[in-house]
């Protein structure tokens, strides 16, 4: 590894690109800002790939950069990636160029350069969130992501966007402020123990009294539960996805919401191991409710964007479940799930977006027979849908399977309830497909053009990666597993020895050694 600050470059490049884009004249449908934004995000993806190639699996925290930032607060500018962070960095860097490509005309009626610059700004901040190794820095960029997200929803969405943006922001701010209390509390503990420091590596050495740890844990957990989202603080989710453009929804659900589950894994477990074990029964219950409730709600939706939003509630239930069953299959599965959910849901949102743009309505009841008019669109929709419901051969299956193994390992009842989520997923995906794509074709739909090359270009990489990782997930697991093991060690839990029935999980354990 050279001394070049790769991670800082990864944060700064999109932010600078966003600034340049914003400075360009905001003529509606201007092409130049779009091209610059796409170029910047592609370059960012290349940088991320370089980091991914240079990363050595099992080597702990890498590419670290640490500088003092605010001495009096004990805050540092500290970046680094480990297996969990790297997976999410790669996901973010992969998704943003595809979203820009897919949203090429979404902002043509409004302030085009603003849309593209906000997306880049959001990308830079989100990358910083996943790489921050200092709680203060994490908090700052965590909250800062809300500003571009808010304007993306509020300025470029559909009907009711201002209201949805406000609801989104108030939920997020409330969560953020609760977390602020805990962040400040960490300072108090750290300052009492000696010189104050916000570095995760320093904080994980601290000793808390039992209840201090539990209160601080709660502050973090509630914020992350709102972000993820988890039942019962999920109600912002369907409203936001229904009002935002599909591209924005991809950024919110597939990238930003991962901060919630990432934060649980990185902060809740590593900083407050005792409190995490204490909270496990409640969290697992909430996760199960989210899985089933989200799926049931999705079945009843007529608005495709709401439906996809609610499927994510169900999927985030799986991710949280995997994290809090506190065994290696669950946690590895969850980390992989974060990546795979990003791919599958992004594909589903984007295809739905194409369809809605053509039809002019997001209601399922307004569609029908699309597969005759636009067979490629229908095919893509089917692939994305099947990925979402966890079809073997596509990558989400692997992660879902691992999480279920982890669930059964925790308690058979937990696994059994979680499995119903898969059955329900099949219902909501296939019903949606049947109602929109099959059946008689109405005259408005018969003239619908099929996907053009740009639109296919935005989807193809997603499908490709899903198929590749569906058949051969090992490279990702090799990156994830060593990090999960060190997380398990710091939480102080070990796997139960014998009764792990699945081959997949057994293999990964061997590989990691």
């Amino acid at each position: 590894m050279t001394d070049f600050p790769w991670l800082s470059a990864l944060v700064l490049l999109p932010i600078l690109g966003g600034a340049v884009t914003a400075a360009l004249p905001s003529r509606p449908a201007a092409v130049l800002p779009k091209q610059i934004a796409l170029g910047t995000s592609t370059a960012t993806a290349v940088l991320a790939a370089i980091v991914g190639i240079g990363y050595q699996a099992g080597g702990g925290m890498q590419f670290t950069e640490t500088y003092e930032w605010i001495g009096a607060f004990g805050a540092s500018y500290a970046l680094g990636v480990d297996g969990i962070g790297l997976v999410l960095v790669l996901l973010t860097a992969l998704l943003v160029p595809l979203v820009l490509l897919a949203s090429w005309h979404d902002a043509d009626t409004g302030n085009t350069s603003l849309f593209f610059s906000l997306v880049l700004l959001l990308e830079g901040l989100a990358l910083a969130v996943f790489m921050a190794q200092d709680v203060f820095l994490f908090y700052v960029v965590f909250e800062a992501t809300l500003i571009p997200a808010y304007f993306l929803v509020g300025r470029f969405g559909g009907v009711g966007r201002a209201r949805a943006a406000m609801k989104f922001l108030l939920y997020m701010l409330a969560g953020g402020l609760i977390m602020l209390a805990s962040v400040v509390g960490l300072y108090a503990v750290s300052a009492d123990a000696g010189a104050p420091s916000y570095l995760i590596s320093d904080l994980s050495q601290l000793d808390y009294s039992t209840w201090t740890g539990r209160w601080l844990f709660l502050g973090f957990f509630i914020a992350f539960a709102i972000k993820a989202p988890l039942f019962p603080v999920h109600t912002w989710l369907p409203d936001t996805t229904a009002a935002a453009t599909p591209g924005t929804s991809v950024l919110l659900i597939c990238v930003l919401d991962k901060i919630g589950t990432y934060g649980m894994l990185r902060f809740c477990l590593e900083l407050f191991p005792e409190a995490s074990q204490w909270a496990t029964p409640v969290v697992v219950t909430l996760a199960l409710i989210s899985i089933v409730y989200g799926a049931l709600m999705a079945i009843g939706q007529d608005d495709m964007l709401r439906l996809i939003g609610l499927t994510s509630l169900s999927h985030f239930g799986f991710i949280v479940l995997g994290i809090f069953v506190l065994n290696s299959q669950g946690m590895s599965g969850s980390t992989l799930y974060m990546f795979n959910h990003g791919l599958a849901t992004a594909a589903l949102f984007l295809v739905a977006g194409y369809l809605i743009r053509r039809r002019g309505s997001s209601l399922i009841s307004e569609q029908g027979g699309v597969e005759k008019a636009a067979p490629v669109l229908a095919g893509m929709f089917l692939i994305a849908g099947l990925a979402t419901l966890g079809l073997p051969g596509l990558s989400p299956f692997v992660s879902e399977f691992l999480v279920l193994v982890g669930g059964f390992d925790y308690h058979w009842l937990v696994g059994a309830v979680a499995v119903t989520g898969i059955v329900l997923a099949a219902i909501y995906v296939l019903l949606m497909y049947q109602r929109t794509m099959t059946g008689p074709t109405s005259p408005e739909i018969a003239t619908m053009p099929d996907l053009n090359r740009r639109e296919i270009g935005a989807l193809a990489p997603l499908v490709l990666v899903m198929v590749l990782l569906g058949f051969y997930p090992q490279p990702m697991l090799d990156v994830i597993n060593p990090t999960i093991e060190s997380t398990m060690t710091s939480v102080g839990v070990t796997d139960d020895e014998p009764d792990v029935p699945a081959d997949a999980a057994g293999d990964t354990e061997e590989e990691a050694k």
Partner: protein
Amino acid sequence: MSEFSKPVIEYGQLWPLLVIFGVACAGVLVEAFAPRALRARTQTWLSLAGLTAAFVGVVVIGTGLSDNDGWRGGIVMEGALAVDGPTVFLWGLLLLISAAGVLLFAERKLEAGVSAFAGQAAALPGTEAEREASTQGLDHTEVFPLMMFAVAGMMMFTSANDLLTMFVGLEVLSLPLYLLSGLARRRRLLSQEAALKYFLLGAFSSGFFIYGIALVYGYSGSMNFAGINEAIANSTGNRGLLLAGMGLLAVGMLFKVGAAPFQAWTPDVYQGAPTAVTAFMSAATKVAAFGALMRLFYVAFGSERWSWVPLLWVVAILTMLVGSVLAIAQSDVKRMLAYSAIAHTGFLLTGVLGARSSGVLGEGAITSTQAVLFYLVTYAFTTLGAFAVVSLVRDGSGESTHLSRWAGLGKVSPVVAGVFALFLLSMAGIPLTAGFTGKWAVFASAMSAGAWPVVLVAVLSSAIAAFFYLRVIVLMYFSDPVGPGPSVTLPSALTTSAIALGVAATVVLGIVPGPVLDLAGAMGAFVR
């Protein structure tokens, strides 16, 4: 009878204060002797020159303080004033705010060639005399010396080391502000009502303050803070007197900072006063009053902490909740900012009650003085800038402060709306703005002192407050203009530079707060 000895006056440490008093007096002479046409210009330059000279003095004294030769400031003027770290820090801050205030006072482009102050304050509203004053283009340039007197009073208030000097400082700063509040050119009845209300309630609170002085003197036999502290430490005298006196002094102080339940004057005065005065007053009064409040409680009553800290807990919680809840119901920008100022007073009190003795502080941990001083810097520039922006949004009858008139401002004037949104985000405490770092500092100070219930309420009221700040942003960006829509009058370079100062401070202190925070830490020791 002892022999009379000549008092020693340390001019070397006091000259910034004396310069401001001198400039104020010179301003009165200018009013008397300079021809009318030249007055406004002369006053502006005189005030700016005086403020600059005083600021240079503050920097020189401050450099002497921060040299590590052990001199942490001292008691001067025979014990009447203390020139120490907090004094120097607050003096510097007050002078910067006042410079921005002078720029706002001198603005003449917004009212098409005249200032924002009444042509002839003595003319009754709606009479022939008023119209005449207006057509002649008369102008009250006395506002500049009045402001200088207020600034001198504030500097005295923050550095006062005995109760009498503190009271004199309080009055010297208050009286000019009462007058300034009543001098609006437009909506004069509202302005005069504000001035009268401010004066009556202010006079009432001064009464409390002076009664408190009497009782504390009765307890300790000393006006001097060190003497009071010693009396408390030796626990001589009647504790009932001490507690009652402390309570009454607190009433006077809490009135000045605008804390609940003594906040009732704030919205009316902030709304009625000319916006330039509101901008100056909301920033500078808060700074001066918190400086004095900390000195009084930390230096004089430091040994009696366990009696006043619980009181401040209650007041801080009440203030934050009252400020943020009532702000939701406001439909006028200035009133909304006034209630937000009340909420910020609560946050500042949260910092003040984080006082701990230096023995229990960890190495490098943030002190309450440091946190409050830093918060004052962040808040002062943000609120100053926000009110300055309010003065730009106008229609035919002057400023249009009703919120409905702000709808769609983002489309009409993206720059003004963007700047105002930045100030609102800072007040809401969004990271990467000054408001966040300030809030973090006071919360950390309170949390370290174990005041977690107060911090929880502070967090809760921040969430409530975020709602009404965001509502304005929504209104500016996502609503369509009603009727002819808002119009923004382009200001001259004067107001523009004041706003630019606010923007710069808000952004810089949000991203690299380190230097100012360290300065506040280095300057954070009161001398006794």
